[in-house]
């Protein structure tokens, strides 16, 4: 698979090179690469065509099986303009890529199932740049007439809150949920609040598994999870163990050299490590810590394949606690999603792709309800009212091999509750160790462990 993909890309590279007139490479090596590229890409086209057939069939039928028949009541004939505010270029482009892929797949599936016509406009917030985000959202509201929006990252999503409340635009964030985005009109989260929600369960699990651990090292950034870094984690750790935080280091987002932090952790002799860093940084951290000869438990609050490929085999010593998305979940909608995603993009979906995929289905569900009530399904206010009236939605998370999962949005603070767990990693793949739930800071952190 991987080789095929690279082969196909090599062909694209060869085209790009010849387009720019760069015949500088020696002709002999050119021929070999082009030949092998042609070969592999031909093979891929064949396999792609084959799997696409079955997928369309499976996609069409399975969506109708889960969400009911198409037609006018399902929003056929309704066009809903949706915007996406993502990181499309630079360091975070991976996130923008998978988020837009998830949403696009959902739009295709809904259209095929005889539902609404969901039109997507994608804007780039330049890795979370706030002024860019504001400009882009204003542009999408005035030029593209968006009625719903899928936003990402913490800072830009907090910043656009007044804009979307005024327009209004019904907005969902499945990426960087932060405490500052809670309880804002027209802004809803469909991922758990980053770090804050799983922190108690994560530490309780460490305490349960390593009862002798007394000292904790904290790693984080100034972007996300600051509350956990400063309060939630130290308090919960003290309650659990009577111990204290011996190292607390914040680093800059995008750092790759963590030798200094690793040395400090080693020197302080911490018994356990909790990192609320995110993205690739976490992969660099785990690798640096293990290569410094530190063998204590290392807990994170996120898992990405990207970070795993950076850390390599050292990631098998890593644990994380989050509302993790699992491709293996037998939930029928999830299996339908995974199959269609693989067929369309030639790769497995992951956490962020699945969140943005689900968001479009939440919009669709709301459109259907507004139509049933005889309202205007493109009016953001009526869509939000429908959400508040019944905040339960089908989900690719949770469920079983016969039952589709369900998630519930909190109509007070607009957050979401999803199944969470503590995971270990085996050969780069997450394995569920313990289910956990969100608890309030006042509660005993041990109660976060689901018995």
């Amino acid at each position, binding site marked *: 698979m991987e080789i095929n993909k690279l082969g196909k890309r090599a062909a694209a590279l060869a085209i790009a090179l010849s387009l720019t007139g760069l015949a500088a490479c020696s002709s002999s090596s050119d021929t070999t690469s082009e030949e092998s590229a042609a070969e592999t890409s031909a093979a891929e086209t064949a396999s792609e065509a084959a799997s696409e057939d079955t997928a369309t069939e499976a996609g069409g039928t399975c969506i109708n099986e889960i969400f009911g028949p198409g037609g006018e009541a399902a929003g056929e004939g309704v066009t809903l303009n949706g915007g996406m505010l993502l990181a499309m270029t630079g360091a975070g482009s991976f996130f923008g890529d998978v988020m837009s892929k998830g949403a696009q797949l959902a739009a295709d599936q809904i259209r095929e199932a005889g539902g609404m016509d969901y039109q997507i406009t994608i804007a780039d917030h330049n890795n979370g740049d706030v002024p860019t985000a504001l400009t882009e959202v204003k542009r999408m509201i005035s030029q593209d007439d968006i009625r719903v929006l899928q936003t990402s990252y913490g800072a830009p999503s907090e910043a656009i809150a007044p804009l979307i409340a005024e327009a209004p635009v019904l907005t969902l964030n499945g990426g960087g949920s932060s405490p500052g985005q809670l309880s804002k009109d027209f802004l809803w989260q469909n991922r758990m609040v980053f770090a804050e929600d799983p922190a108690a369960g994560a530490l309780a699990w460490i305490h349960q598994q390593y009862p002798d651990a007394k000292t904790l090292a904290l790693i984080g950034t100034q972007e996300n999870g600051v509350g956990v870094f400063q309060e939630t984690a130290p308090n919960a750790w003290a309650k659990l163990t009577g111990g204290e935080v011996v190292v607390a280091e914040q680093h800059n987002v995008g750092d790759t050299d963590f030798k200094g932090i690793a040395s400090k952790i080693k020197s302080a002799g911490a018994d356990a490590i909790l990192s609320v860093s995110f993205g690739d940084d976490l992969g660099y951290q785990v690798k640096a810590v293990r290569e410094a000869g530190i063998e204590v438990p290392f807990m994170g609050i996120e898992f990405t394949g990207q970070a795993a490929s*950076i850390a390599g085999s050292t990631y098998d010593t890593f644990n994380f606690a989050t509302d993790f998305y699992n491709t293996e979940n037998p939930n029928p909608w999830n299996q339908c999603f995974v199959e269609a995603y693989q067929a369309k993009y030639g790769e497995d979906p992951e956490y962020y792709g699945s969140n943005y995929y689900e968001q479009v289905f939440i919009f669709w569900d709301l459109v259907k309800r507004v139509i049933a009530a005889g309202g205007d399904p493109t009016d953001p206010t009526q869509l939000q009212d429908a959400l508040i009236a019944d905040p339960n939605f089908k989900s690719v998370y949770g469920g079983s091999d016969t039952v589709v999962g369900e998630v519930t949005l909190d109509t007070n603070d607009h957050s979401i509750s999803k199944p969470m767990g503590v995971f270990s990693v085996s050969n780069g793949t997450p394995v569920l160790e313990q289910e956990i739930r969100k608890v309030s800071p006042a509660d005993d952190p041990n109660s976060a462990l689901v018995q």
Partner: protein
Amino acid sequence: MNFELLAQLTIAGIVLGSFYALLGVSFGLVYQTSKIFHLANAIPFAAGGYGAVWSAEVLHLPLFVALAFGLLMAVVFGLLILFLGYFPVMRRNGALLSLFLVSLGITVAFPNLLQIVFGTENIPLRTYNSEGELSSAFDNRVFSSGFLTITLIDVLKIIVSWVLIIAVVVFVKRTRSGRSITALRTNPTMATAVGIDRKRVYILVFALGSFLAGVAGLFVTAEFVASPVMALQWTIVGFIAVFFGGIGSLVGTAFGGLVLGLLSSLSSLYLPVNYSPIVVFASLFIILLIRPQGLFGKASV
């Protein structure tokens, strides 16, 4: 004073500093000679990494051949930038600002090209083993002695960086081609007068500089992954090293890089690690105020 921590941070600083020195000499060779603010040195860096990863997976090349292929790509892409980006602007009597803007444009656009061609994913360096399966190409061994540890890649970084830096310095000082670099750098008019072909010298320094950037890219790829944005933060370090150590001297640049790495690492003895970029830039600022020619640079005449 915690001596174990001091010793470990010193080791980390030497590793980082050696890498900075390599990047500084890479950037310095080009900058001193052409005065082009060659930000696009990030491209050969990334081309080295992607060249190795791609050739190992698609052409099934064994590790060392794939690394060599990566270096070849680094040089090829460095020269492509020179021929397609800089030379056309120079022919139109291009000002340094125009050349910098060309460089900036290439630097911004190239990661996007990488994303389009290779995708946004991080790609680890993997080679085919004897069973014909793709597996991690490089097992980064850890050597430890008591509290202190160092990895194989770190050891290689130190050795390879300084061997290459010394080789480049000797080449520039002792050979005819090398002296043409010094001649063009110190007195372009006289260099032309004695018959040195400016274009050839540019080709030489871009090839050398890109080769060194490619080596740096291979290190990052072998240790971690190749990714579209893998290069920019490192190449910026390269030009800080040049101004820090000495604009006119490669040896000064190399030692500047080493000091920079030590400073950045040892500052975390007393400060949180997210202060280390501030420490680096503050030191650069102070150096520029009190020794504008750089820490080890000769005062310009």
